[in-house]
C-alpha cells in the first residue's frame, strides 16, 4: 500500500469543512424557526430557491446588488408575515407533525410561485469571486469555498450575537425556552414569529446566493434542505451550536467518504452518506451531539 498522502487528506478535509459551514448555515435557518415555534420548516429550501431566483432575476433586469438584495430580503419578510398569518396562526396548538405537513405544502406553494414568477431556466450567478484554487502551505483550497465559508461564518456569528445581546434576541430566547411563560410576561408571539421567519429568510437568501453561485440558480437549489436534515438529526433540531458542529462533521465526513471510499461503492454516495453517518452516530450516541432530551430511547 502506498504512503498515506497527508497533504491531500488535509485538502479534502478542509474542502469538506468549508462546505460544512454552508450546511450549518442552512441548518440554522431550520433551528431558528424550530426553536421558537416548534415547526420543522420544510419550506426552508424553497424559500432559499425563491430568494436566490428573485435576486438573480432582478440583477438580470439591471438592478444593483444592494437593491436586488434588499428587494429579495423584503420579499422573504413578506413571506414570513403571510406564513404567520395564513398558516401558523390557524394551526396553533396542532401537533408538530401537522405543522410539518403544512410546511411541506408551503414548500410546494413557494416553489411553484417562484418558478411561475421567474421561469424555470437555470440562471448564472456571479458574485465576483473567482473559483480559483488558493495555495496555503501546500494545501489547495478553493477561493470561493473560503469566501462562502467566511460569509456563512460571519452571518452565523452575527446572528448568535444578535440573539445573545439584543432585546429581540432575549425575547426570542424566552419564547424558545417556554412559550407560555413568554406570553405571560407580555411578549408578542406573532411578532417574534415574524421576526424569526424574516431572520431565516435572510439566511435563506445568503445561503441561496452562495449555493447558487456555485451550481447555478435553479430548481435543484431547493434540495439543499435535504443536505441540512442529517445535520439537524446529528446536532439536534433546537441547537444552534449543534447545527454548526453537525454541519462541519457532515461536510467533512461526506467529502472524505466520497474521496476515500466512494469508488468502493461505485460513486455517487453523497446522496445518502450524510444520512447514514447521522444515523450511525445516533446509534453510538443516542442523545445526539449536545445531549438532546428529545431523542428518547425506547
Amino acid at each position, binding site marked *: 500500500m502506498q504512503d498515506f498522502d497527508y497533504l491531500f487528506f488535509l485538502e479534502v478535509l478542509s474542502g469538506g469543512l468549508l462546505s460544512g459551514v454552508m450546511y450549518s448555515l442552512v441548518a440554522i435557518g431550520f433551528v431558528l424557526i424550530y426553536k421558537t415555534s416548534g415547526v420543522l420548516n420544510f419550506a426552508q429550501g424553497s424559500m432559499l430557491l425563491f430568494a436566490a431566483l428573485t435576486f438573480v432575476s432582478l440583477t438580470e433586469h439591471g438592478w444593483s446588488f444592494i437593491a436586488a438584495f434588499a428587494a429579495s430580503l423584503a420579499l422573504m419578510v413578506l413571506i414570513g408575515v403571510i406564513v404567520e398569518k395564513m398558516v401558523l396562526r390557524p394551526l396553533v396548538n396542532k401537533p408538530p407533525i401537522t405543522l410539518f405537513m403544512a410546511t411541506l405544502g408551503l*414548500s410546494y406553494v413557494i416553489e411553484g410561485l417562484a418558478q411561475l414568477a421567474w421561469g424555470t431556466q437555470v440562471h448564472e450567478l456571479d458574485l465576483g469571486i473567482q473559483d480559483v484554487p488558493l495555495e496555503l502551505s501546500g494545501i489547495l483550497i478553493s477561493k470561493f469555498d473560503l469566501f462562502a465559508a467566511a460569509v456563512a461564518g460571519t452571518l452565523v456569528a452575527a446572528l448568535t450575537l444578535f440573539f445573545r445581546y439584543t432585546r429581540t434576541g432575549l425575547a426570542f430566547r424566552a419564547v424558545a425556552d417556554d412559550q407560555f411563560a413568554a406570553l405571560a410576561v407580555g411578549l408578542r408571539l406573532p411578532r417574534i414569529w415574524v421576526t424569526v421567519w424574516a431572520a431565516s429568510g435572510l439566511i435563506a437568501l445568503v445561503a441561496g446566493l452562495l449555493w447558487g453561485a456555485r451550481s447555478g440558480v435553479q430548481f435543484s437549489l431547493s434540495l439543499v434542505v435535504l443536505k441540512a436534515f442529517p445535520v439537524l438529526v446529528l446536532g439536534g433540531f433546537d441547537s444552534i451550536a449543534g447545527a454548526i458542529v453537525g454541519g462541519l462533521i457532515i461536510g467533512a465526513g461526506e467529502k472524505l467518504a466520497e474521496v476515500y471510499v466512494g469508488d468502493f461503492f461505485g460513486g455517487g454516495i453523497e446522496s445518502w452518506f450524510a444520512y447514514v453517518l447521522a444515523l450511525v452516530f445516533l446509534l453510538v450516541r443516542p442523545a445526539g451531539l449536545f445531549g438532546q432530551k428529545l431523542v428518547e430511547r425506547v
Partner: protein
Amino acid sequence: MSVEVLSTPHGQTDAAPFAPYVWPAIVLLVAYAAVPLVANSYFLEALLLPFLALSLAGVGLNLLAGYAGQVSLGSAAFLAIGAFAAFNLNLRVPGLPTLVNILISGVIAALVGIVFGLPSLRLKGFYLAVSTLATQFFTQWALTNFGWFSNYNSSGVIDAPKLSAFGFEFVTPVARYYFTLSVVVLLTLFAWRVATSQTGRNFIAVRDNEVAARVIGIPVLRTKMIAFGLSSFLIGAAGVLWAFAYLRTVEPAGFNLDRSFQILFIVIIGGLATIRGAFLGAALIVTAPVILSRIGSFFLGDLFDSGVLEMSQRVLLGVLIIAFLILEPDGLAALTARMWKGIRTRLGVAASN
C-alpha cells in the same frame, strides 16, 4: 362492538344506518360491474390504474403513519423495491406466477422496511421522519448505481413483463384494471383485518402513548417493526402494480421524493387511520392535475404551457394540503362521514314530518 370504535380511532363515529359491509359491497359492485362498462381506455389507463396502485400505497403508509404513528417520508423507495424485486424475480425465476411474484416482492419490501424501520426504536417524531429519507435516497442510489437490479439495461428503463394469473394474460386496459382491482381489494381487505385486529389496536396504543402501551403489556418494539413490515409489504405490492399494470415500465426515476410526498399527501388529505381515506385521497390526488389542466386549457388555451401548468399544479397541491390541515385535519374520510350524516339527518327530518 369495541372493534367498531377502535377502527375509527379519531373519534369519528360512522353513522351509516346499514351494516358496515354494505357500503364497501356497493363500491365493489360498481367497481367490478359498472366501471368497465362506462369507462374508456384512457379513463382506465390514465386514471383508474394509478388511482388503484396509489390507493394501496396509501393504505400501506396509513398503517404505519396513521395507525402506528410513525411518519415515513420514504414510501416511494418501497414502491421501487417492490417493482424492481418483481422485475428481477420474473427475470430470474422462470415460470413464477405473477400473483406469487407480487407476494414475494412485497415480502422483500417488508424486510427492507424492517431494516430501515430500525431507527424508529430510538428516534421519534421529526428525527424519525427525517431518518426515513435515508431509505429514499439509498434505495434510489442503489437501484440506479448497480446495473444488476435493472439487468444491465443501459437506458435504465425496462419494459415490465405481462401480468398473468391462472393461465390468463392481462393485456388490455380492462383486463389490467380487473387484475389490479382484485389485488388491491384483497390486500386492502387484509389491511383492514390487520387494522381491526389486536395488532391494529397495538399500533394505535403505541401511537397514542408508548409508555402506556408498554405498561399494559404491548410489545412496543415488535409492534413498531410489524408496522414497518406490513406497511412496506403493502407499498411494495403497490409498486409492482404501479410498474407492471399501470406504467408497464420499471425505472428508478419515477420513484423519487415527490412520489413519497404524494403518498403522504394521499394519507393526509384522505384522513389518517382510515382505510377509505386512502382511496378518497388517492382519487383527489390523481384527478386534481387532470381537472386543473382541463380547466387551464379551456380558459387560457395555448397560453397555459406545460411548464406553467406543472407549477400551477404544485401551487394548487400545496394550497390544498394547507387548506385541508387547517379546515379538515381528519381528512376527506371525516368530511364524507359528516356529509353523509347531514344528508341522513335531513332525510330523517323529512321522513318524520
